[in-house]
């Protein structure tokens, strides 16, 4: 009964001009062109987008598991990257 599966694509939609493309879900399609038309029919039936990206899921490289992963540790230990790290007197304007 089982049929040969079409590859899985991840779908990204730009909601309107000025916004980034955002991941909205996935779908199966035989090729890129079909993935785009399916994505249009599935994810933008009510003007949800002005632009669509599709990419084969197998082509996405992803970081491992979740936010407690040491992969992200370097971003936590450099507080001097944040503007609030610096003491500026209140009477200095516009800074």
């Amino acid at each position, binding site marked *: *009964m*089982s*049929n*040969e*599966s*079409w*590859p*899985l694509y*991840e779908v990204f939609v730009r909601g309107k001009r000025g916004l980034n493309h955002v991941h909205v*879900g*996935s*779908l*199966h399609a*035989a*090729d890129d062109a*079909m993935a785009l038309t399916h994505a249009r*029919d*599935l994810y933008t*039936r*009510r003007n949800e987008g002005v632009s669509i990206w599709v990419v*084969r*899921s*197998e082509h*996405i490289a*992803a970081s*491992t*598991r*979740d936010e*407690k992963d040491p992969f992200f540790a370097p971003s936590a230990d450099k507080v001097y990257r944040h503007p609030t790290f610096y003491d500026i007197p209140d009477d200095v304007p516009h800074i």
Partner: protein
Amino acid sequence: MTTTHHAEASPPESPESPETLQEHFDATIARDQRIEPRDWMPDGYRKTLVRQIAQHAHSEIIGMQPEGEWISRAPSLRRKAILFAKVQDEAGHGLYLYSAAETLGADRADLTDRLIEGRQKYSSIFNYPTLSFADVGVIGWFVDGAAICNQVPLCRSSYGPYARAMVRICKEESFHQRQGYELLMTMMRGTDAQREMVQDAVDRWWWPSLMMFGPPDDASPNSAQSMAWKIKRHSNDELRQRFVDMTVPQADKLGVTLPDPELKWNAERGRHDFGTPDWDELMRVIKGDGPCNDQRMERRRSAHEEGAWVREAATAHAAKRARKEPAA
């Protein structure tokens, strides 16, 4: 297998002990944060979700049939266009949900097989026939109304992709319910014969709609675990009560009678009392002995088989294109 390549479904590899993983999972649930596909999760949580999401997806797909039968017989172009759009939405809802199930490692073709071979269920409500065009209206009003009661809390379900699919679906269900109610209002302004059709449809769909929320709480063994995992947010009986309270004033406005002599306002509880659905009937329909089980399954099976050549042709076309245009 496509699933092993799924960006979100790679099997988690971790040097951490099972206890640490479980603690982290429990803490995430306790903080009311979402579980995401690549997080570690207990096997039971994953299995429960795959089963629930797949059944939900199958219900959307089978749910195209009862109303789809009326597309060619809709009384006006306006009603036909609306019904087309609604049935297309049901297909879309099924696909959002299959997509969510795949983030848990399920395989799309396998899920389709499980439905077609009767190894996974779909909602019992779609095993009832649509005898008149009023049924289209009543399905929108009752069945989609019940679906909204069920699905709005699922927008806060603990599994991220499921919750996000539900947000998208709930936005669209509102159109479904309103088109149904508007259709019924139009018929109620028509002839006596039309009003009788509406009342007849209400009489037939009321009890099956109450059964959509599942068995009563004391006969629903998996509910407690699902609620502890925050997959489910409210019990079957609570959701059923909400649906009744929501629907009674709508029935009054419409001018129809809900077919339950025990239905009455209980001022003390601030809610409606109502009768008990026939749970034996629900069990019979779930087990395959409803009025339309065979017909629904046969239709789904033949649509799948008769569509095989299209899938094969598209695959062959894609392969040919790939040979002609080596990857850019």
